[in-house]
């Protein structure tokens, strides 16, 4: 049979199998969801998460985590298979005709790489970065910071976030909520400039560092993602090569799970090779640095807010822990010195003496 026809047949079989797979999983999840929660039909990930939660009835235990992974399995399985099927569909006619199939595959892989690594790069404005920062502060950090940040966000909505702290009193006034003070006759005297200027520069510096760290993090993430997507597409290419070799030997893959396992095994090996290259290691280290720096400068900026609100900061608590740790070490050393200096208990001495007597030659 013509390979295009066979490929179509294969796609049809897989399509029907997928429908069946999904319908089975959906009914299981629906049954679980029916235990008390409404199941939204428009959001598959939410749908399965809810199904998993309902099935396990546990919070953060191994059963719940495992059930979640099980519910995610068909999605991963179908996505993996769809990728491979699409790749195979692209190259099958060329392979049958004995033509070079790699260029067509490369086009497809290039398209995937672009999608995976989020290219073309989106250029985020500083305002958008700042909105993202504020959102992260609102969502993940103490609600105590919300009013302050809200004010800051409003003040910087019109331009670069640093502007809120720079260039005279207007932005600063907005941030601190003292607009009126710096308007009208008082503004002529520049009263706010000198004392606040230093504070403002310090604050500005810390917040600008956060913005820079976010940009660095995004760049590092993009680079890392690019490396991963290169390895991923290479693994697809190798899987096709593997299938071609099977065909040449007259062998075949007859089950979707077998094909999936084959691809996973090839993908793992390809990833390993990638992870072991100095270039990728460099990219990974850069990502780690960017992540850590991001966390550190966010904390520095937030601690500035906490100081204003007279709330103890992470750094202050860590400093206290460090002092306690040093004191614990001293106490341990003193205890040990005391123990070493204390004469052995009488029982042990008596035992030693007895042993000594026993070893002494008899006087008689």
């Amino acid at each position, binding site marked *: *049979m013509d390979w295009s026809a066979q490929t179509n047949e*294969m796609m049809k*079989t*897989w399509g*029907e*199998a997928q429908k*069946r*797979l999904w319908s*089975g*999983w959906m009914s*299981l999840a629906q049954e679980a969801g029916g235990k008390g929660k409404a199941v939204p039909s428009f959001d598959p990930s939410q749908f399965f998460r809810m199904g998993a939660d309902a*099935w*396990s*009835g*546990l919070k953060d*235990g*191994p*059963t719940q*985590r*495992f059930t979640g*992974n*099980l519910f*995610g*399995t068909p999605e*991963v399985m179908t996505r*993996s298979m769809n990728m491979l099927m699409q790749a195979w569909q692209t190259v099958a006619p060329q392979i*049958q005709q004995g033509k070079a199939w790699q260029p067509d595959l490369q086009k497809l892989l290039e398209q995937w790489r672009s999608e995976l690594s989020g290219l073309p790069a989106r250029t985020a404005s500083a305002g958008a970065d700042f909105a993202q920062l504020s959102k992260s502060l609102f969502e993940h950090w103490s609600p105590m910071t919300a009013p302050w940040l809200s004010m800051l966000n409003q003040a910087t909505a019109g331009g670069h976030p640093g502007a809120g702290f720079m260039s005279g009193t207007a932005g600063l006034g907005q941030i601190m909520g003292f607009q009126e003070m710096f308007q009208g006759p008082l503004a002529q005297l520049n009263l706010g400039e000198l004392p606040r200027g230093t504070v403002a520069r310090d604050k500005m510096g810390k917040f600008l560092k956060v913005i820079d760290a976010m940009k660095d993090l995004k760049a590092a993430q993009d680079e890392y993602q690019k490396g991963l997507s290169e390895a991923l597409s290479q693994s697809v290419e190798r899987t096709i090569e593997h*299938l*071609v070799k099977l*065909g040449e030997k*007259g*062998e*075949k*893959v*007859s*089950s979707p*799970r077998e094909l*999936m396992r084959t*691809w*996973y*095994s090839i*993908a793992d090996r390809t990833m*390993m*090779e990638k*992870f*072991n290259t100095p270039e990728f*290691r*460099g990219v*990974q*280290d850069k990502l*780690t*640095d960017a992540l*850590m*720096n991001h966390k*550190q400068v966010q904390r520095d900026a937030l601690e500035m807010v906490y100081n204003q609100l007279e709330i103890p900061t992470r750094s202050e*608590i860590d400093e206290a*822990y460090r002092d306690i*740790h*040093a004191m614990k*070490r001293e106490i341990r050393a003193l205890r040990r010195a005391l123990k070493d200096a204390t004469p052995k208990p009488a029982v042990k001495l008596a035992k030693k003496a007895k042993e000594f007597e026993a070893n002494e030659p008899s006087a008689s």
Partner: protein
Amino acid sequence: MMQFPIQFRADAVAHELAEVESKLSAGLTALTSMTDEDVDIGSTPKDVFYARESFQVYRYKPVVDADKLHPVPMIISTPLINGYEVADLQPDRSLVRNFLNEGIDVYMINWGYPKRCDRYNDINDYVTDFIDDIVDHVIEGSGAEKINLFGICMGGTLATCYSALHPEKVRNLVLTVTPIDFHRTKVEGQPHVGLLFEMGRSVNVDAMVDALGNVPADVLNVSFLMASPFTLMFGKYADTVDLLDNKEALLNFLRMEKWLFGGPDVPGEAYRHFVKEFIQNNHLVSGDLVLGGRKVDLKNLSMPVLNVYAERDHLVPPPSTIALGEHVGNKKDYLELPIKTGHIGIYTGGASQKILAPGVAKWLKEH
């Protein structure tokens, strides 16, 4: 002529998926009836022998008569990464139970779940204070003159350092899958072997610890998963479908999951200290490691040493472990025991149950 290599027959695929659905349904029914408590790990009966700060020392209840109990107590030194339960994961695959059956008096260190206030504990604290304190307590409590020290992975590295500093308190040292030479980690043609140490060599550990404080278990788990990302993150769960209709097998799978993903965070300074001194600078074998103000000299390992390694270990490659043989002071009483398994399989694998504990017990009784 070349054959079309993907032959999905509609009836075979339908059958395969029907089987998957049926197993899944049975598995999910089993899962609904399970609680977290059912997935019990570390269940061998024990008492808390000693507790201090965030760690505890267990003494396991002997299963042989007192006169048959081996006179030298054995302390199991566990890693700071992952829990102590790897040695007691499930009742029929428990290193601890196997030791008890062999008449060994077993003590186990559980380092616990370090809190933020523990972040300044470094390797000095663990080796020269905590382990030394534990050894003293066991010696005092048991009336023995010395103890046997059994190390698990990184716990073995700590035990090695301790034994080199205090050979007078250690009668025998047994190491299992223990990294010693952190720069002998590559195996030609096996890119996944030793990857973790390769990554550790270039990581900016200062940035990590300064930003994170304690290093979260999840960060470490991701590193472990990277040695086989597709298989461990996706393939493993797809394959689990095949054991879903077997409740006992499912329970055992969940025990492993619980142990793998329920590990403790690592105290920040201990992590920094270990990565810099051991992984990056390899000071343990270069002779430049200083703990508690004293140089850790492997030549001081004058006691008999049994070094057990897993031939298929990709996390701690065998060359890293057996390098110890070149450095010990007492080469006459140094013995290696290879087991055909992987890093975790050495404790939990079926075949290993008949080799590890019986082999170690026999060796201990001879020394």
